Each structure stands twice: as C-alpha cells, then as structure tokens.
C-alpha cells in the first residue's frame, strides 16, 4: 500500500486495528467503550511500569551485585 500522507497511513492503521479486533462491526458507543477500556489498561500498564520498574531494576542489580560481585571492602582490609 502506498500512502500519500502520514494521516492516510495512521487512518489505515486504525482501520486495521478495527478489523483485527472485530470492533469494526460495533456501534460507535460500543467502539468508544472498547477503546476507552483498552486505553486505560494500556495507560495503567505504562504508568505502573514507569513507577515500579526503576525500583525493581535497582533492587535486582543490587541483588546480583551481591551474588556475583567481588569481595567487599572489609574483606579487602582483612587481606591487607
């Protein structure tokens, strides 16, 4: 498919979304319900990942640093 403008392309993408999910055949108010549910679910997923993922990543890094990391400073002092 060749598209003249970006708008055309976005419209076509939205049309594909309608067809694949099946909401093409629904009435407008049903479409808006589906869309709002989908958008809110996605938004919540994005928001939660924004809030919690950095913390989790930091904790995980700390954990693995503890497992695979070298000796700590006290061990070094003992050796010297």
């Amino acid at each position, binding site marked *: *498919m060749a598209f003249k403008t970006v708008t055309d392309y976005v419209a*076509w993408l939205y*049309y*594909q979304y*309608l*067809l*694949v*999910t*099946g*909401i*093409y*055949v*629904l*009435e407008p108010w*049903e479409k808006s319900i*589906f869309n709002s549910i989908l958008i809110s679910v996605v938004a919540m997923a994005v928001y939660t990942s924004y809030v919690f993922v950095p913390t989790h990543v930091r904790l995980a890094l700390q954990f693995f640093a503890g497992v695979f990391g070298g000796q700590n400073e006290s061990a070094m002092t003992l050796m010297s």
Partner: protein
Amino acid sequence: MIVSVRTPPTALPPPPCRGWTGLANRGGWLPTDDGGSASLLNGDAGQRGAGDKRSGKNGFVKNHCLFQQPHKYRRPREKVRPPGPGPPHGSVFRVPGAYCCRRNMTESSSSKLLNGDAGQRGAGDKRSGKNGFVKNHCLFQQPHKYRRPREKNHNVVRNPGLYNKPFVESFEETPLLVAVLTYMGYGILTVFGYLRDFMRHWNIENCNVARERDEQKDFVPLYQDFENFYTRNLYMRIRDNWNRPVCSVPGAKMDLLEQISYDYNWTFQNTGKIVRDVINMGSYNYLGFAQNKGRCADAAIQVTEKYGVGVGSTRCEMGNLDIHEEMEQLVARFLGVESAMAFGMGFATNSMNIPALTGKGCLILSDELNHASLVLGARLSGSTIRVFKHNNMVSLEKLLRDAIVHGQPRTHRPWKKILIVVEGIYSMEGSIVRLPEVIALKKRYKAYLYLDEAHSIGALGPHGGGVVDYFGLDPKDVDIMMGTFTKSFGAAGGYIGGKKELIEYLRCHSHSALYATSMPPPVAQQIITSMTTIMGEDGTTLGADRLKQLSENTTYFRRKLREMGFIIYGNDDSPVVPMMLYMPAKIGAFGREMLKRNIGTVVVGFPATPIIESRARFCVSAAHTRETLDTALEAIGEVGDLLQLKYSRYRPALPPALGWMSEESHLQD
C-alpha cells in the same frame, strides 16, 4: 507364526497384464489361469493375493486395504509423495505451500484399475504369514497417525492409479497468528453480545428480535432465546451484505436496489435509487443460462403461451404434462442413465427421496460437509447416520469396514443396506469428490452410492455431465444420481437418475413425487432448451463454447487469485472459488468494500463454515468475459491490500503449467 510384512506405502502399481494374477499365486486359492482376469474385473475380494504378496499357509493375505497406509509418523508439514513405483502411473509434485497433489495416469492402466478395484490390489511386495492372511485389509491405506491438528488431510495422495487426470487440490493451513487474532475477535464480539443481551433483558435498550410478550412470560418460550445469540449479536451487525434485493436478471451483471439502514441493520429503507451494472460473482449461474433473452427465454415464453404457468396438481394426478415426460427422457439421456425423474424443488429432491430409499436398520455414511438437504433427508429416514471426514477415503473405508464387521449396534445383525452419500462439488470448500475412490470402495463393500451433483452438473466435465463425466467414469456405477436444475441450467427443481426400477420405485414412494405440485411448464422448457444446447443437439456449438469458457474462466480466476497471494480452497477445476477472510470483521468489510467497487460477492461466516474459516465465495460463470473478470480481480486485489487479506505464505504460487514441466523433469530423472 504369522509373518506379515507391512507394505511400504506405495501407490498401487497397475497390473502388468490381464492375466497377471497367476504370477504370484502363493496362497494356493487363487485362480491361476488367465481366465481369472475376468472375475478379477468384478473386484472380488477373493482374488486379492496377487503381485508378490505372499500369503501364508492358509492362503490369506493380511493387508486387505485397497488404499494402503502410509507412514505412521511424518514430519508435520511435509507433503506426501508416493514412494515406490510411482512415476509411470501416478506422480505427485508440490506446489509450494498448498499441499497439492497431482495425479497422472495413462488411460490404459487407469481403466484397468477402475474395473478391478479390489481384485488387483494385491500387487507389490506384501507378504503374508504362514496362515496366509495379510493383516491390513483396507482398500485405502490409513494416513499417518501423527499429524498436526490443524492440518487437513484432504491432500494425501492415495491410489493415483484410479484417476485419469491430475487431481489438484489445495487447502492451505490457517496461519497461526491469524487464527489467534480471529478467536480474539470473536471473543470481543461475544463479550459485547452479552452486554447487549443484558441491556435488552433489563429493557435498557429496545429489543428488536422476536420475544415473548409480558403476558406469556410463564409459558414455555416459543422463541428460543439464547439459540439466536449469533444471529442477534454478530449477523445483524453486518446483515447489509446479504438479502439485498436484485432488480434485474442476475446474469454476469445485475442491478441492485440501494438500501440504507438507520438503526444498525435492524430495518432497511429503500433510497429509491438503483445501483446499476454490479458484477455478479455470487450466482450459481455456471453456464450463464440465467437470461431474459435468447433461445431459452423465447422457448419458455412460447410454452407459457401454450400451457400457462401453473399446473395445479401433482404428477400422479392431473399434473403430468407431455413436456415433463420429454424433459425426463432428455435428462436420462444427458446423464447416461436408464431413467430419470424431475422434481419441482432441488432441496426437496434430497430431503424427500433419501427417506424413500433407506429406513430403519439401514446405514447412511455421509460426508461431514454434506448439504443441509442431505442431512435433513438422512435424519428423516430414521436410518443410522455415520459421518466420515470430508473427502477422506480412509475414514470412509474404516466406517464401511466397521459397519460390515460389527453390523447394527446391540443386535449385531447385518445392516439392511449401506448408502454412501456424497456431493459432486462441495459448495463451501470448492472441492471435488474423489469419485473413483468412492466407487472402488462402494463396489468392494457392496454399498450403494448417492451422488448429489447440485453444483457439478453442467459445470464440470468435457460434456458438462458433472463429476462422472469429469473423471470419465461410467454413470451406471453410481446408483442414485441426483442433481439440480437451479444452477447450471438457469431453471428450478431437481432430478434423480438411475436404473429404471429405482425410478419406478421412487415414483410410487417419494413424497416429493406424490405430494408436490408438478414443475411449471416454462421451467421444464428452460431445462429442455438449455440441456439440448449443452449437448449440442440444437445444431450449434453454443453449449460447447459455454463449457469451454467456464473452464477457462475458472482456471484463470483461480490462478490470478493465487498469484495475488490469497488463500484459495478447493480443486483447481472447481468453478466455486472460496477465498479465506478468517476474521469476523473482515466478512462485513469485504462485502461492503466490494460493493463500493460495484462488485457483488457472497461472504460466508460461521454457521455455514467452521468458526475461524470465514470466507468469500466466488462462483465463476461462463457469462463472465475476460474483461469482467479482470475488473473483478483488480477490485479484489485492491480490497485485499486494504483489508490485508493476502495471507498466503507461498508467493508467487507455481502456475499449473510450470508444475507440469517440473513433473516432466521429475519423470526424466
């Protein structure tokens, strides 16, 4: 001790010569003289042990199957090609992706095989044990035990020797992602359906479907509520694709009434406009006899002036006109059977005549995709019905064998009769019945065969004689030939052809012969004129031209669609062309987009097809010119891009001509 060696899964080699039974008659109970060939032709099971099959001491050979079993295990998407002595009489090649098989057979060997169905089976190197039995008794071998669930097994090559021409079928499997998305789409629509039903139940929204009144609430419900869930919540939303009034002859082009709905398809209003010259890709007008001018129409007008339109009585009372007798004789001649009779309605021909033929204590073996009329007839007859997999001869043979071995349930009496019910062309799959194999099975197991040629009569075969003509078989091998005049002949009604005794019997016992009003004279005349045209008895080549045009159109249309990357089901020679859409929303979208481009198509969804295999069905007609088809194909390609329908993963497909070349080179190797 039984020494039984499983045969390698070979196609059956044709007998080297007529008297070839004597070559390896080790079982000791086979006729060794050349005269044995005569009895071989009857297909007697007793002469099974030929070839290098070695039977044991008691002279039995263990493998009794006509169609042998291929490997137990094969790799999932591998195609089957018959190993062993394939090339001279049967060879297979692959069209990438679509499991296609080509069967090629020289005329001479095929005719031999066709006659001696079971008797000449025993070739190859099958060895039986000491007691002389060979274990596998099946006419057709069973396919692999292991296969992927979604894989369809229509395309396994068996017994290529029975075919006198390549038999190319393809049923490309559904891409996994598409299947998942389709189920997801149905899931979403079902959730919204429940929501709407909930709202209707609590009167939040107006209920448009039939339901009980408040005063009737305590009665048993007349309108089954949940049963119509699909109709109410999925079909209604895209109903504008069906039931559209046509206001001209539905020939190659037609005019449609423009309709509009303000309440999401619950009601329609006419706008008063007419959509002109819509290309008709949906009518079963295979030979283009749906016309309002030309020889057929003129003859029908003359007959109307002579006889009027209505008859007002049944055939056995005052409704038997000379034109009916003339038509039945013509139909019998056209089919190559002894006698034929006609009925006013095609559906009733099936549903009322099967009960006249079978009853309690009989067994009906029915293809799983048989038409509703056949299913209804089988149920009305009160016989036991067993269903075999679509066009799957192994499944059919297994049912036949079980029926003969076990007899009726509980009592174990033998079945009174066994009737195999198949269709010529399956209208939803576009597949052609494997008739040579069915006939071989029918002869071997002494069953009767009921062949419904609703779509194939007129549309297949070099002389338009349907699937029997297509395979070059003898019509007398089919016990009951049924068909309709509705499709290729542009008329109405159905017929049954067969032996004289059969027809005499049906005239007295069939409900549709005794109670139905006889066929209107203009309709009978339309049948006579179109049939004589097809047979060339009118002294012109018009009929032959139409047949040629149809087969050219079919090949062209199928090839073009496949090249564009659509998934097309069915046999390459079938004028019914199903194109897969899969997703529920695309059913509606395809019909609407095509109509926007002035092309009328039929789209088919769940109750008529498996739930994920929604499709658009095109019916190619001899009335379509190459330009018409090109216009339609261009629009289909455009809509296919818009809706992303080009699912096929095997592009560009191998054109048939190339396929033949590759086969030739294979042979040379």
